[in-house]
């Protein structure tokens, strides 16, 4: 049996270790949190598209290409000269829908407002010419009201607005550059339907929020 002194020393060491781990985890979590401004979460995400700014704007105004590109996951309806309504749905058929009004604010600038979603999400997008002939930087800023618990649930469930924004930017880049968004969900395999459903969940985790 260890002496009392050894017990106290061990307990002390354990307590200090626990404190250190907690602090490190808290610091790390803090680093991963989006900025807070006036009660809003704010994230800024960017992606580089290998096309000039005019071509990126052109993509949004070429109805035929846009409809073909968006066919699987969204419809876009023009409301007036500068306003559009976007209805996006989960291509896997999860039943979730995202309705937003998009307004063109000026050359290379647009904003959108979610009109029918779980949380209010105003956002702004700016198109900037990238250096070194790298095309266009799409810089997006997304704001939403939430609390730490709801955010944790969103992150775990893959419905966090930040994850959604990153996924959307990746898809937009792919659509503009290639005209397609690839998907391997229906590739053949030797899996049973149950195994396939489990694998689709893994695929979802590997798709949502990912950047190239």
């Amino acid at each position: 049996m260890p002496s009392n002194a050894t017990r106290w020393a061990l307990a002390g060491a354990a307590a200090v270790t626990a404190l250190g781990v907690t602090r490190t985890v808290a610091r790390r979590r803090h680093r991963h949190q989006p900025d807070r401004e006036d009660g809003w979460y704010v994230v800024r995400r960017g992606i580089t598209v290998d096309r000039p700014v005019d071509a990126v704007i052109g993509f949004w105004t070429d109805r035929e290409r846009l409809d073909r590109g968006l066919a699987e996951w969204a419809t876009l309806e023009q409301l007036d000269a500068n306003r559009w309504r976007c209805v996006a749905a989960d291509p896997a058929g999860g039943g979730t829908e995202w309705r937003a009004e998009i307004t063109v604010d000026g050359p290379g600038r647009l904003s959108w407002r979610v009109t029918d979603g779980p949380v209010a999400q105003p956002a702004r997008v700016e198109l900037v010419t990238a250096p070194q002939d790298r095309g266009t930087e799409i810089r997006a800023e997304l704001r939403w009201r939430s609390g730490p618990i709801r955010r944790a649930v969103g992150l775990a469930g893959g419905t966090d607005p930040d994850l959604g924004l990153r996924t959307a930017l990746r898809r937009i880049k792919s659509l503009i550059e290639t005209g397609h968004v690839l998907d391997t969900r229906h590739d053949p395999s030797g899996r049973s339907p149950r195994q396939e459903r489990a694998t689709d969940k893994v695929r979802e985790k590997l798709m949502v929020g990912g950047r190239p």
Partner: protein
Amino acid sequence: MRALCWEGVGKLAVRDVPEPTIRSGGDILVKVRASSVCGSDLHLINGYLPAMREGDILGHEFMGEVVETGPDVRRISVGDRVVVGSVVACGSCWYCRTEQFSLCDNSNPQPVFTEKLWGHSPAGILGYSHAAGGYSGSHAEYIRVPFGDVGAFTVPDGVPDDSVVFASDAMPTGWMAADFCNLKGGEVVAVWGAGGVGQMAARSAQILGAERVVVIDRLPERLATASQRLGVETINYAETDVLEALREMTAGRGPDACIEAVGMESHDVGPAYAYDKAKQTVRAQTDRPTSVRQAIMAARKGGTVSIVGVYGGLVDKFPLGAAMNKALVLRMGQMHAQRYIPMLLDRVAAGEIDPGYLATHPMSLEQGARGYEIFEKKEDGCLRTVLHPQAA
């Protein structure tokens, strides 16, 4: 259709699976005529690249006949006999525009895993786990190839299937390894690994101007094949101290360029290797970098080390000090298939490179599990098993 599926670590089986369909405008469907096993498949089968799911179809080095094309495909037609690069590339992003196809921005639809592991997500690879996009592989009667116009190349008449199949991966990988060495003519190049990629790297180095090529392995039959087919010098590391031998062969200088064509399951002799193997077994390191260490130590001062063997994660005892203080150039990467394949097909048609001898073990799909076993254990002088999914 029938397909060779991964059923868990070390387990493969032929299963009846649904046929693939055109999913995107740029897709083509290829009826697979020849599909080779590759050393990098062993890392997947053995669970070292941990993103496989039960039922995944393996295989990424293949050729066949186009049976259907998507509405956006222009360059490739139904009936074309094609070889397909194993790396999927969109042909439209900045990386593809600058011919760095294996870094394509748009071809991995599941980028989260590699983004977390490596900081960014490179291109998808057919039949190469869910980290590389979750594409179905080519050990099947049919395969869907995305961006068919970019990844498929018509094959010259008269070149046999079992030869041209290596233009899919082993040849471009070997060529890129030699290309990395920036050879001007007259160099001494050492190549670690006398498998398919190592032998193609040795041949490519010769074509690009190397005066002497030295191939290093432990299997006498592979070294003998390399020596007979390519006229290279060889070192058997199980019998000879590689560093001393290379130093003496170059009168003290060391090779101008060292190509590593082995990868994360590298072998060696001695206690250091046993230590590495133990650490990898308990996953205290993901990769065994024995031959990379040797290549760095062997390279001459200011020389080049070119790594095309596949690594996935973290390694131990990487001799960064040697690389830094000898001012080495380190080049590495998955091959840019689409950059090299057309040129390589011309060279094969002209008889300048003849990779057909690598296909030592042609087999049916049903013999696939046994084919991998022979290949992994290097039985019967096996260099490559090539599966023929259309054979009964």
